[in-house]
């Protein structure tokens, strides 16, 4: 049953253009910033988001740089100002950030993430739904054609991330 549900979920997400290599857009960033307002302990003020990328992968680096450009001097949403800091995968353990954003193209190299994020109790967000499905990342964001948010409950629990009940009732969880 669980396998069937995951299969259907992936099918729907693919149908909605949510494949792993989906290009991150400004709209994705806006939805991310807004969604962060529904954590039970929401980020406020200057919030540093580490953009995790694979320095060995040019596409991953390019995407990270594009996201940094999108956020510019800070993306505002309510009381939150989201700022970006590029974080190579090998500096994951030492980066001093409030949350991580996983770029696409990380592939299996992101396996290191899960344990590290759980240890440091830092949540992560991604537009790469596969990263959420596999439990490497807590929250997946899709902004087009319709906003969809997917939360991995186990990953959330491991990183000590929790969301407002009303928010949970309006999103998809696995």
């Amino acid at each position, binding site marked *: 049953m669980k396998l069937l*549900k995951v299969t*259907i*979920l992936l099918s*729907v*997400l693919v*149908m*909605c253009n949510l494949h792993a290599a989906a290009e991150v857009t400004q709209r994705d960033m806006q*939805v991310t910033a*807004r*969604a962060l*307002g*529904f954590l*039970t*302990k929401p980020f406020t003020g200057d919030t540093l988001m580490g953009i995790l990328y694979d320095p060995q992968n040019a596409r991953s680096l390019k995407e990270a740089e594009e996201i940094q450009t999108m956020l510019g001097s800070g993306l505002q949403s*309510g009381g939150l100002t989201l700022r970006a800091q590029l974080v190579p995968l090998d500096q994951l353990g030492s980066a001093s950030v409030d949350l991580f954003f996983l770029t696409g193209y990380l592939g299996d190299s992101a396996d290191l993430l899960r344990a590290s994020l759980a240890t440091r109790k830092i949540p992560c967000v991604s537009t790469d739904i596969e990263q959420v499905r596999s439990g490497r990342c807590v929250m997946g964001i899709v902004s087009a*054609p*319709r*906003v969809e948010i997917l939360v991995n*409950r186990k990953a959330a629990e491991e990183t000590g991330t*929790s969301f*407002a*009940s*009303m*928010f*949970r*009732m*309006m999103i*998809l*969880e*696995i």
Partner: protein
Amino acid sequence: MKEKYFKLALAVASVQLLSAKSYGQSLDYAALEALFEEPVTLSVTGSPQRASSVPANMEIISHDDIERSGARDIPGVLRHVLGVDIMRWTNNGSDVSIRGYNTPFSPRLLVLINGRQVYADHYGYTHWSSLPVELEEIRQIEVVKGPNSALFGFNALAGVINIVTEHPRYDDLNMLKVQAGTQEHQQITAITTLALGERGAARVSLGTRRNDDFSTPLGILDVGARQGDARDALTIDTHYALRDDVELELEASRVDVGQTDMITSYQLGYQEVVTSSLKGLINADTQFGLIEGTLYRNEFQKDMSIVLPAIRVGSGIRALKQRFNSDVLVGRLQDIFKVGADHTFRITSEYRETSMDIALVGGEVYYDTLATGVMWQWQMTPALALTIAARHDQLDLGRTGGFPVGLRLSDADWDRRIHETTANAGLVWQLSELDTLRLIAGRGAQLPSLYNLGGYLARYEFPPGVGYPFRFAYGSGLPTLDPSIMVSYELAWDRSLPALAAELSVAVYRGRGSDILASSGAAIPTSLIVLSPANIGDSNEKGVEISLKGQFDEEWRWGLSYLNQDIDDHLDPRYPVSQTLINFEKGSPQHTINANLGWNRGPWTVDAYLRYESEHDSFQALGGWGTGMAPMLAINGLMTIDARAAYQFSESVRVDLTVQNLQKDEERHSAGPMVERGVQMSLLLEF
């Protein structure tokens, strides 16, 4: 009685205890709407949902839609929604129904403001002018078409309208509006939001209006019904965050209205209505879910002046002034929680006390209702969700005050318990990123009003020669009435049309109504009762709705929709239509078309709304209740146009010109007086 209050207080207090280890906050419509890029609502399942995901046929009218509608009251706004029928009887008096079935004092639609019932239980209707809300403070109006009693209980038979106002903690609204126009119309609206430290805020809204009714000719029983209309309203809505995850709301309101209204005998009367309410609500996001406790009290006082015809009083007509007092106390506790990733539940318990004075004997008729309800939503797959809800109401009816000599009734006849179970189910399937399919079923119940359950007790005189064997007799409500039931099925399909930047919605529905209630139907001459309410039979409905709306060139927006409805009455021939004044089949238009076109460039905004209703019939009062003198008059197909032009001088200053009934100086909407064109100019200052 004290024990009941204690239990209610205990239930509300327990919410605070449960929240001792809790997380979260109250529903922030603005933030959620910004996140999901569509309206959100609580009005279908009780749990927060995106408009596109609700298991119901629902329209959400946004603040912007309200502003651009050209309307100056809520029925005027609703007029532009497909499937909502508006009968404007007088300048300020309208009745609203869903998919036909409109009558004076329309009883089948439950209306709420922020979840608080403003439907008047005593007569089973909504007096729109006495609602404590100004158009400018409304965030959205949620219109649910079809039964929704499993969430809201009795009277959500044909639909629900929930009016959601701006939240003072999240929305800072400060404005002054001055409006003047035809029919000597003068209106001032002032709204301000006050901060209460860092954790609280209050919105204070004040509305005052003076105008006249139309000056079109009156019917023969409408003498004295026009005395000048007035409305004064004050609402204070306070929200305070006791903690980050616990919010307390206190709301108080009072509205004084005097206006010409159409009453159920299809004659005009002058009504002076005073409504007041007090509400306390506490909600908490806890480890056990979203827990909410609500306690509110509504008071409704109405003085109604009508005339009685010669057949009742012997010579000429006689003015009659009646007072109706009604109180409602509601306590509700609910918990909405999620189990696992896919299951959301809502458990509700509600206690309600409702009473109405019986002026003739100095007693009251009352009922206490205890209800429990449960809702289960199962996200079967990311694209498929099933919702099932059920509610059971147990109602205990009672009466005090005794009866005049000669009436063979006693208070003990009112010792009655009514059980009613209602249900809703809906399957929402996102077929593709463009298509959503909804399969909906519901069983709703309409409770007989307190008036019909015995609040109505009037003594009538019968002069010799009118063919009645007694010198006098009574009209009385009866305790034996049953709730009216509606069972409805609907299939709806929504499709996005990206190429047209438009949305298409198609719905087909079928419903079966049983035990239709009429305020006047039966006579029991041996008991000296010549007039009493009755369950008069069944009425079925079916229809098709097609709606298209979209935008182009960023400056233009448009909408076009069509409703074809067919109502088929099966009424008991023992109750002649001329007595009951119920004929839904002929009284509802078969075809309705709504269209709108709007344009916005720079400081200018212009909108026009057209509505067409095909020919239907309307009762014409010639003799008053029980006389059988109420023929139906054919009303020709009716097209009305409302429009608005606005110019924004600066961020804080705007001038609006609004017109209703633009197409003609005066137009026949019903067998009542003709409806005149209304034109208003307003100045809006925002701070």
